[in-house]
């Protein structure tokens, strides 16, 4: 049955999904050697005998990576294993020069947790976490020839700078019962993980740079008949869609897989248990290698690394360093700031919460802080193609700007000009106001002269105002603002005009 919609598919089938999220840690060095862990260096300049897998080299565990993994595990409500070990995952592919990846298999450091995920309407879904384990990232292949993809390539080039970068892989238990909200829950789950790793400051959490990556497993099973227990229906065969690397792509990939699998099942064809690749451009998936052949990784304990046995004291000490859960922090701030659901969601999506918080901390009112960051500054960041935090303006600048507005030194229009100056590197808002001469003209004699001049130029206006058409004063206000290059206090100008006309304001 072709042409099925997502909604129709979910009327017939019940989705079950699981997600594996890989988080790249922001340690200074790699997982098992002292090479720098930094994005964007020249190829193969952050490599050494250990991460190249040269004979005789020996890996040593990065203490900070273990600490980060444990803190993440604790944030996910996991238990921390008293003794965990590394394992070799054997496979042949040029992105690992050793022919194995060091990972954890039967004794992951963090296991059995749960995470509350808050959806946009406030509904909370609890996701079971099976494990969170440490491993190393692989190098980066570039396929040469053909269309740049693997098909038709004449050869491939490998850069091992990323090889050996510390990762934590978080694996969920199968998530059931989400029905028509499946894509939304998946997205919110990954967003929550991203928020947590950023709050922990263990990763920059930038999905667009691959520092948080997701693989999505999904299967469909028939909907239980009315009155019957859905969870008693066995799971269907699942597909695993690899490298779904944005929140939007997670929703789209789930939509695609739900429809694709439902169409197969309705046509009486089997869903094949396999790895599939996500294609951002077409919004679809295509099959990769089939599981049964490729997934024989022959794991065995890594003989070159000793077990990790974190003391209970250390684990409790790390528990004491955990930041407030992002969802709780949001609820608290939303309340304290008096933001609407939409205000809050927009600020979160723009990654502006901590900027707004710092601006409030610096003395601005929450709504004013929000207005600047989500308005003028968001537009500027968008125009420049950068993030808010990349703009050369600090929360303290924004707070100072708003103080100048509140004090009547500048009006909104002048404040935008002052902000332009700050963004152009001309100094703090106060300095820009002084150097550009942006202060509001509130000197009555200067304003009265400007009003008289404007009235003389439009002699009929005074009569209109006296006839009761008070709105006609707007033309004079406009003329005065123009004459003073926007620096007049518009309210005061209006009062002067009305006084000239002998009308009460």
């Amino acid at each position: 049955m072709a042409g099925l919609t997502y909604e129709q598919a979910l009327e017939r089938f019940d989705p079950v999904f699981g997600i594996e999220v890989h988080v790249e840690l922001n340690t200074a060095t790699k997982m098992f050697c002292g090479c720098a862990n930094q994005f964007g260096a020249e190829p193969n300049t952050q490599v050494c005998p250990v991460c190249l897998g040269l004979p005789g080299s020996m890996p040593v565990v990065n203490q900070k990576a273990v600490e980060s993994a444990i803190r993440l595990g604790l944030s996910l409500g996991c238990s921390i294993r008293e003794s965990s070990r590394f394992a070799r995952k054997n496979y042949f592919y040029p992105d690992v020069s050793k022919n194995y990846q060091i990972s954890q298999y039967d004794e992951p450091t963090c296991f059995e947790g749960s995470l509350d995920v808050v959806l946009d309407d406030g509904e909370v879904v609890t996701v079971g976490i099976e494990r969170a384990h440490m491993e190393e990232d692989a190098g980066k292949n570039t396929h040469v020839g053909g269309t740049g993809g693997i098909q038709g390539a004449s050869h491939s080039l490998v850069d091992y700078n990323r090889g050996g970068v510390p990762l934590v892989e978080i694996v969920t238990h199968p998530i059931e019962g989400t029905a028509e909200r499946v894509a939304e829950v998946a997205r919110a789950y990954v967003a929550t993980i991203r928020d947590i790793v950023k709050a922990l400051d263990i990763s920059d959490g930038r999905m667009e740079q691959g520092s948080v990556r997701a693989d999505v497993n999904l299967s469909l099973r028939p909907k239980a008949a009315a009155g019957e227990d859905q969870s008693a229906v066995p799971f269907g065969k699942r597909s695993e869609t690899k490298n779904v690397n944005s929140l939007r792509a997670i929703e789209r990939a789930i939509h695609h897989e739900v429809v694709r699998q439902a169409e197969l099942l309705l046509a009486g064809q089997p869903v094949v248990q396999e790895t599939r690749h996500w294609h951002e451009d077409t919004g679809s998936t295509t099959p990769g290698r089939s599981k049964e052949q490729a997934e024989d990784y022959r794991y065995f304990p890594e003989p070159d690394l000793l077990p990790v046995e974190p003391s209970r004291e250390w684990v409790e000490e790390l528990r004491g360093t955990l930041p407030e859960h992002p969802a709780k922090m949001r609820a608290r701030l939303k309340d304290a700031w008096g933001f609407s659901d939409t205000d809050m969601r927009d600020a979160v999506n723009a990654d502006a919460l901590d900027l707004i918080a710092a601006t409030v901390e610096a003395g601005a009112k929450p709504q004013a802080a929000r207005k600047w960051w989500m308005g003028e500054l968001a537009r500027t960041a968008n125009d420049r193609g950068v993030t808010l935090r990349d703009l050369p303006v600090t929360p303290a600048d924004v707070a100072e700007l708003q103080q100048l507005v509140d004090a009547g030194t500048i009006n909104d229009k002048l404040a935008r000009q002052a902000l332009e100056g700050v963004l152009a590197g001309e100094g703090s808002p106060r300095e820009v106001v002084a150097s550009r001469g942006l202060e509001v003209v509130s000197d009555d004699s200067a304003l009265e002269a400007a009003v008289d001049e404007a009235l003389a130029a439009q002699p009929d206006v005074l009569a209109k105002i006296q006839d009761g058409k008070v709105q006609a004063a707007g033309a004079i206000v406009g003329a005065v603002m123009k004459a003073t290059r926007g620096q007049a206090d518009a309210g005061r100008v209006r009062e002067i005009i009305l006084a000239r006309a002998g009308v009460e304001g």
Partner: protein
Amino acid sequence: MSSLERSDVARLAALARIDMSDGDLDRLSGQLAVIVDAVAKVAEVAGEDVPATSHPIPLSNIHRADVVRPSLAQEAALAGAPEAEDGRFRVPQILGEDA
């Protein structure tokens, strides 16, 4: 009865990317089976009071501080590579597998 079948050896050879003739498989499945069976004998010796051991030396938590150390220069890193191009290791085309 051997714990290792000829088909197991063929599968392991395929996973390890070793091209083996029928003669190799016949010969090696016999030899490998002897080794596997010998190792299995050790398992019989271990009683229930002997925990599984992956690391014979009683050490743990040997960690390193997160401090950057010098890496190899690019030329040095690539010096042992059969082929290099644009500062990268050049490898033959990868067919029948995913990226």
